[in-house]
């Protein structure tokens, strides 16, 4: 049972960290530029497809990852220059409509290029299989790899945001945009940079999750909703908020799927407990969001907007 609890804790952390990769970029574009970008999920999907296609052809997972980072970074830049740039001064409804159109186009093009069946992708042999920790304790190597990478990216972002000039400008821009502009910072260029980097992070998340999931058109449409929940909990624009909120969502979601059915089974009739636990566990994350918003309406780590 101890091994089981440990394993589920790792599951919760891994889910949270993977979610963080996706939300870190989204919270920056949302907080810094005020743009609701639904197409973030499409970039996540593109990252997965590029990894799958390139690593299948070259036989190298690492080349696949590099190609996914490069492609999604460039796509992010192009998206900012061609479309998102025109949306800054418009309302949220226009932003939702325009970026939703990007989702439809991306899904259509993906189906056209790769077909409707999910595509083939294997975990590289050195990351495949279980990592044996003790006699009765093991964890999938690939998930351990995801945890390590998630921590590394979180540390890297912490340093970039807290210790570098660019990070300082981005942080300042998300709370005091006009002041930053008045100081002579090229805000346009900074926007494009942040959007490109944010897209690259989304592509990275998609590429990393690809070997564990079905790589298919529309795979990013669902998870982007969860990413917005994380951002709202963490406080719009805060990378630190996104980090802790991602972990919270990972923990609450895993608890809701494991502990809740178990507890309810021991207290209520089977039919009742099944209906109740599936109801509560599928809404657990949203209940968390509601609870956080009651206590802190602007999210956990909200800056002064």
């Amino acid at each position, binding site marked *: 049972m101890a091994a089981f609890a440990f394993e589920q804790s790792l*599951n919760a952390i891994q889910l949270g960290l993977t979610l963080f990769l996706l939300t870190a970029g989204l919270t920056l574009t949302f907080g810094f530029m005020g743009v609701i970008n639904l197409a973030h999920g499409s970039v996540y999907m593109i990252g997965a497809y590029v990894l799958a296609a390139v690593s299948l052809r070259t036989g190298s997972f690492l080349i696949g990852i590099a190609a996914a980072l490069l492609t999604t970074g460039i796509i992010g830049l192009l998206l900012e220059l061609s479309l998102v740039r025109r949306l800054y001064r418009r309302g949220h409804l226009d932003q939702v409509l325009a970026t939703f159109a990007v989702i439809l186009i991306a899904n259509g093009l993906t189906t056209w290029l790769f077909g409707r069946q999910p595509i*083939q992708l294997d975990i590289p042999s050195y990351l495949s299989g279980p990592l044996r920790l003790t006699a009765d304790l093991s964890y999938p*190597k690939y998930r351990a790899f995801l945890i390590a990478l998630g921590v590394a990216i979180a540390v890297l972002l912490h340093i970039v945001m807290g210790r570098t000039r660019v990070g300082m400008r981005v942080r300042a821009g998300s709370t005091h945009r006009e002041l930053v502009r008045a100081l002579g910072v090229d805000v346009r260029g900074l926007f494009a940079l942040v959007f490109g980097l944010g897209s690259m992070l989304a592509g990275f998340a998609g590429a990393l999750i690809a070997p*564990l999931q*079905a790589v298919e058109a*529309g795979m990013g449409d669902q998870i982007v909703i969860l990413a917005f929940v994380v951002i709202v909990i963490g406080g719009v624009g805060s990378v630190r908020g996104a980090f802790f909120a991602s972990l919270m969502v990972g923990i609450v979601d895993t608890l809701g799927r494991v502990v809740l059915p178990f507890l309810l089974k021991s207290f209520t009739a089977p039919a009742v407990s099944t209906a109740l636990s*599936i109801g509560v566990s599928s809404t657990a994350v949203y209940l968390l969001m509601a609870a956080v918003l009651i206590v802190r309406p602007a999210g956990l780590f909200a800056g002064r907007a």
Partner: protein
Amino acid sequence: MGISAVKPHLAFLSAALAIGASVAHAQSPVKIGLITTLSTAGGALGQDMRDAFQLAAKEEGGKLGGVPVDLMVADDGLNPNTAKDIAERMLQHDGIRLFTGIIYTNVTLAIVPDLLRAGAVVIQNNTGPVELDGKNCNPNLFGSAWHGEAPGESAAAAANARNTKQLMTIVPNYTSGLEQRGAFKRGFKGQILDDILVKLNQTDYAAEISQIKLRRPEGIYMFLPGGMGISFMRQLHQADIGDIPMYAATTVSEQVTATVGEAARNVVGSAPWTPDLDNPASRKFVAEFREAYKRTPTVYAANGYDTAKLIGSALAATRGDISNIAAVRKAILAAKFDSVRGKFAFGASQYPVEDWYMTTVSKDASGTYVPHNAGKVLTAHGSPYADQCKF
């Protein structure tokens, strides 16, 4: 999304029209409405079914049973409202009275009652819903694939055949998932250790797999169609859990095992037809399908092909006159065609009475993982609700 779906559709229509035109002096073609799902993530099944149906018509140069047919293909986008609009247009504007092609139960339930009320004949070429079986059967509704609970029942038969003492189930929390699980549990003779319910379209199964690891079941009954099953198999393969058979009925196709590779090696499927089934009609179908589409047909393709042949047999018997519904019904019920399943017969509620086979997955010569027929698990199996059907 619709781009690739529309192209072959138009191409075929123009081909069908051209063929139709050359024989128009002999007989005006019988219109067949093929309402199916070609787009969205669920589009692969409809595509297979349509391709096989068109193959059957192409064999005869645009005819079925010697009668020229005008096949009108429409994509419902897995949306019941879209399907309703298409059905209305085909009934009123095109005057179609013969329908098939529907893949998903929510579409079936949305439009089939309307079609039947309008006096049309409907051949359901995928899972026939329980809601239109038994007491709610209809003389003009036929199922050419299997009755509603057959997939779950056949998975149970496969688990029983392999002497499984205990197992766990995993299904998404929606109607079909719960129905199939119910059918499985009624048929399974061993003990159910635990039932896991997941969200529809869930992508991460880490928490569930840890539970499975803890309970150490001898097998898993899974009803996780499409991408859900792929994600689950890939993730289970990474866990320290050994070889656990996954009883998946018809949800894991040849394409899926090829995509998933080694992680699909423990899948035990079940179906009334497999590509390696040894009979002349099946051999011919598999060879022609591979030749035409460069892929191995799935059981959904086989259902489409059999449906076309079934319609062909009825058109031959009625000489293409489908205005006399009683004669059409009689001809369909007789089912005089060479089924790829070897034999074909209807039960009292007009769903097939058929044999089911178990499949296991292994590597073929080219290194691709492919399901193989591993023997019969159900003989002459029909709907459990057939005797409640009274016309």
